[in-house]
């Protein structure tokens, strides 16, 4: 990176200040001011808004359900993400390139399409696998497994996108050295590869967590959305907002945004650490 004094790029002071003004105004009107209203509305009556929201058993249940789904899908996705990254970078197989493109697909698929896709396959009555699974005691759609699947679908690329570039960068020399000294695949992964990619994995996990907590459309389609049973926090926000319980909607939204922002702060604090290394 260059110091500002040497770059022509920053332009004349006038251009610089105009650019600053435009960017700050844009972000303020689009992002900061609206978000500030969320905080203001939540704490309009001090802590009572949050306290009242937390006194509602449906709210507590929805938050717990969201947390459970998020943790379960992030764990599954992390194992899958690290595994698939290793395969994509370290192995050569037919369809590798296609796979690396397909992994990104969930980023461009509408959440409602995700929901529809899962319903068509896992619905208990007419899905491709649903009736068989239900006959064997596993209800997917309108139950927890469906919501976890939907969340996994949405966050699928996040870990892979973080880990693959770092694995590329790392190269294979150390792993080969370890192997030639007699380490088995597991030892090589645990002692050499994982320490090298650990920050990338942490970013991936934190980003997936933020995203999983806030997933709305896909989960809404596959969940039953019965309050206190299969309703997640984001769907509860919609229901409360439209049901004229706006204070509750603001409080729950605030908690969700707070969790997401905390995730981002963790990532921001971790990033420079790796840069310096």
């Amino acid at each position: 990176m260059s110091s500002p004094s040497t770059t022509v790029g920053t332009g004349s002071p006038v251009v610089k200040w105009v650019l600053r003004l435009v960017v700050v105004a844009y972000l303020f009107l689009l992002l900061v001011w609206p978000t500030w209203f969320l905080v203001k509305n939540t704490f309009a009556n001090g802590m009572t808004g949050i306290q009242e929201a937390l006194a509602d058993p449906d709210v507590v249940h929805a938050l717990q359900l969201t947390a459970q789904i998020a943790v379960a899908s992030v764990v599954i996705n992390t194992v899958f993400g690290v595994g698939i990254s290793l395969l994509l970078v370290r192995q050569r197989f037919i369809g590798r390139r296609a796979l690396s493109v397909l992994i990104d697909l969930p980023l461009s698929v509408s959440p409602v399409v995700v929901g529809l896709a899962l319903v068509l396959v896992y619905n208990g009555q007419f899905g491709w696998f649903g009736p068989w699974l239900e006959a064997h005691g596993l209800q997917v759609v309108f139950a927890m497994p469906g919501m976890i699947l939907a969340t996994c679908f949405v966050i699928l690329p996040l870990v892979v996108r973080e880990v693959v570039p770092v694995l590329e960068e790392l190269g294979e020399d150390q792993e080969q050295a370890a192997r030639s000294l007699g380490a088995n695949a597991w030892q090589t992964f645990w002692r050499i590869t994982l320490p090298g990619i650990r920050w990338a994995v942490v970013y991936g996990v934190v980003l997936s967590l933020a995203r999983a907590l806030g997933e709305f459309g896909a989960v809404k389609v596959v969940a039953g959305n019965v309050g206190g049973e299969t309703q997640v926090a984001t769907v509860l926000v919609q229901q409360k907002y439209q049901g004229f319980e706006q204070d509750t909607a603001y409080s729950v939204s605030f908690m969700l945004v707070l969790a997401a922002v905390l995730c981002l702060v963790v990532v921001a604090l971790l990033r420079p650490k790796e840069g310096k290394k």
Partner: protein
Amino acid sequence: MATAAAVADGRPARWRRSASSGSLTAGSSLGLGVAMIWFSLLVLIPLSAIVVKAAGGGWSTFEHVLASEQTRSALQLTVVSSLAVTALNMVMGTTIAWMLVRDRFRGMGLLDLLIDIPFAMPTIVVGLVLLSLYGPDSPIGVEIQNTRWAVLLAMAFVTLPFIVRTVQPVLEELDTDAEDAAASLGASRFTTFRRVILPALVPAIFAGAALSFARGISEYGSLLLISGNLPGRTEVVSVRLFSFLEGGNLAAAAAVATVMLVIALLAIVTLDVVQRRVARRV
């Protein structure tokens, strides 16, 4: 990811030939198998189910669905709005990335953090948050709820990070020598930007634009509260799809979803082609 794949393809051949990765060991074959089964059950089979369901009715399903004035106008609104927002992002995203890399001022770190907020904020909350400034009780008197402006606003919010985050790293890598040379040869700042910097950024801008467009097309949650979902006016295609789903008309839902998937795939392919060009040029 696409960047990574492109980089992988361009890397030196000696790595490719390294002994250990030539063929799959038993362990990695097992891993690949498990990963592929999971990926298929989660993504490939369900997405194919949409196409199969839509194709099950033959062309007539598509014709029937697309003949509906309401669906066509939802598709049109979604595509046009996404394009407009993507064009806006190409300008604003590049400008913001520029500031984050080349400018130095207090609060830079905070600004950098802000850019990621739209990515992490739950979409339903985005709608709710925008409504408090641009809704019926707007403190600044700008009320755009239930208008097409609301669709643009919500899309601009959720797609904000994409171009910033693809352009930023390229700009950081960019050598200032060429700029200095151009300036010392008498090029004006604008000429330097247009002839030296912009060409280097164009691939990244387009890659980000593809992501931004795809996200705009597929947006659902943030539009729900603020756009009013008026049929033929402010209803986007995801909302249309959801009402087909709720009404139990799965064939129509699948047909609309297929159209959306095709548009998304086109965006991904464009992204990948652009990324590969970048890798080749570097």
